């Protein structure tokens, strides 16, 4: 239980409260019209926003697993670099598709 308060409880709290705020931010700005998904450049930003959320969630989860010895610490940078590569590839692809 003590370990839980140092590992997954803060993780759940962070992404629970943080997640509510994050998705509320998207909903409010879309409803307000300032985040206009009909505009090409804004569509690309939706991908960036969602990726960012998953990126940080994965970062914290991987680091917690590494600290607990469940995965090797070297797995953390490998997975994150893989995610960054996917992000760059998809962003560039979206740029081309949206331009066309």
């Amino acid at each position, binding site marked *: 239980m003590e370990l839980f*308060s*140092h*590992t997954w*409880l*803060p*993780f759940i*709290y*962070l992404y629970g*409260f*943080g*997640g509510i*705020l*994050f998705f509320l*931010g*998207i909903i*409010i*700005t879309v409803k*307000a*019209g*300032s*985040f206009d998904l009909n*505009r*090409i*450049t*804004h569509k690309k*930003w939706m991908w*960036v*926003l969602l*990726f*960012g*959320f998953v*990126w*940080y969630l994965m*970062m*914290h989860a991987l*680091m*917690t697993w*590494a*600290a*607990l*010895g469940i995965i090797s*610490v070297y797995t953390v940078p490998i997975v994150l670099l893989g995610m*960054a590569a996917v992000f760059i590839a998809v962003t560039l692809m979206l740029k081309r598709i949206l*331009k066309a």
Partner: protein
Amino acid sequence: MQTFHNIGTSTDWIVMVVYFMVIMLFGSYFGRYTKNTSDFFFGGRRFSWWLITMSIVATGVGSHSFVKYSAKGFEHGISSSMTYLNDWFFIPFFMFGWLPIIVYSKVRSIPEYFEKRFSPSARFLATILLLLYMIGYIGIGFLTLGKAVIPMLPEAFTIFGITLPVTLMGAIIVIAIITGIYITFGGQTAVIFTDLLQGFILLFAGMLLFFFGITYLGGFDIFWNLLPMEWKLPLADFNQPSNFNFVGIFWQDAIAGSIGFLFMNQGLIMRFMACKNVNEGRKAAAVNILFILPISAIVVGNAGWVGKAISVASPHIVSPTVSPDQIFVVVANIIASPGMFGFIMAALTAALMSTVDTLINATAAIFINDVYRPVRLFLKRMTVSDIERDRKELRAARYASIGVTAFGVLAVLAFKNFPTVYEAHGYFHSTLTPPLVVGIFLGVFWKRFTPAAVITTFVGGVALMILGARYPGILIAPFDHGIEMNQAHPYSYIRALYNTLACSVAAVLVTITTRLQVKIISIIRKGQNKKIIMNAIIGLSIVLFFVVLLNISNIYIQCLSTAYILILVPLAVTYFVKYDETINTNGLTAGSINIARRLFKGDEPNDLVGEKVIVHFKQVEGDENVVHFSNEEMTTMKAKTGDLVYLSDKRKWMGGLKSIHSVFGSPHNQTGTVYITPSQFKHGLFVEGKLLDAEKEM
């Protein structure tokens, strides 16, 4: 607790002096591009995202980070820099709410937004709160700088037989003088370019230190295995100990701190305002938070982690009792060779100066925009000539920078008694950010939020916060999530939750009772004694605020006074402030961004996606407000006469330093050439014979 002096060699000092001279020369070179107050404060709104991203690194990372995160890294491990990884939650609000509003509404400072959105009285109160916040931030910066250099200095200097002890405040005053001189003559362009260089150097120096640390310990596996399991976890324990717990830091940093940093740090806002357009600002924010901040988290905390590993393996080399705020310097000295240690220390102190410079520049901007100009306007001393006015403002801005530096040094006194810089900064954030954070946030995202509500947030919210600070065991304890109350510094972090809630409750209650306030005021207006009644309400509100502020009487009377403040202040504001929701929110809320864009352009925005073009330029006399492209290029850019255009030197690495914003004039037939006036040529700092990039903005 073990403290140090005289760390480092003469080689290190030589390296540090050379580094500072190079940085100052670099900044001075770009300082020559400062021609008016717009350049001095905003860098002329022309820079590319990558330049702003790197310059934000030096502002964010430099800000007391090395010292405070290394300290917590030594005490608690990798979770020390968890605050670097929690800024993403508010990014939708920032990218699609606040950022476009500040750019399109052309506000020059945050208090100016409050005047446009609410009233001049809201601006006045916001100016006071923001100046307190900024000066406090400068104070924290100076405190960190002092703590960083003290271990390198001897305990005393002897000059002409007189022994002068080296004290923290003495070191800070000398640092403040050097910092003040630099910012006074540089301006924002100089700061941006100096920060660009320092951003790269900082990341390099921090990673170099980590590499040296790992090498010193014998490899990454040894380092990792030496750390106790708790030190490897990325997040702190949920609610203990009281000086470093997850939930307190979440509310203090991820909520109040992130909104504070993104929404009300005038220094950061000015960086985004220096971007060439809103989309570049979004890119700068996204790249910085997604990729640079995780690297920065390693850069700023690793000295503490390495220090902990050394203290486990060799406690005689790094004692577990080393003063946490000195661990960065101690570890750097152990693992880096002479000269290299000087370089790392120079990078650290120069970056800290960079942060302080940015804040001083930003605070001076607030002073000019929200104090100097309104006062001159009130005294009817506005000079006729724009050039003359700008010259005077630039001079006033430089004097303001000196004044702000002096107040920043005085602010150190409020923070120097905290055990570590981390706690001082946490307490500062928790205490000073909530009223403005709530005011900005609800102002942008809630159209119904009224001047009465924002002013009550500033007055009544602050009264509630004072009560919380005075009676933490009663008022903050219900929100403490099980955190033990430290009697010396009660609830340094979790007080952010109480303070934010207190301000939010005041704001929401007043907003939803707007009709009732209007009804009461309309009854008062019909009476014959309306002026007497309203003056009595204002007088009573002031007296009640001082009852709370000066701790007069007991808790019950003070709580009752606060309740009356929450009732009386909205009535006074409703009576005196003229406010039309439709007019005052136009272009100033997230729901009216399209109106803001239209107002910014002066016409309907053209969102057709065109292509960039590369052109030669030709100087011709004509209208200073427009540039003329050929029909063919206008078609490629999908632009029409009256649209906004951004012209920059084709050399991408210049990052927009040589550029202008203008408007498409009537087209001509000379394909491949844009006609600009000699004045535009001069303002854009263009070079004869060099090609220009052109893109339609909207």
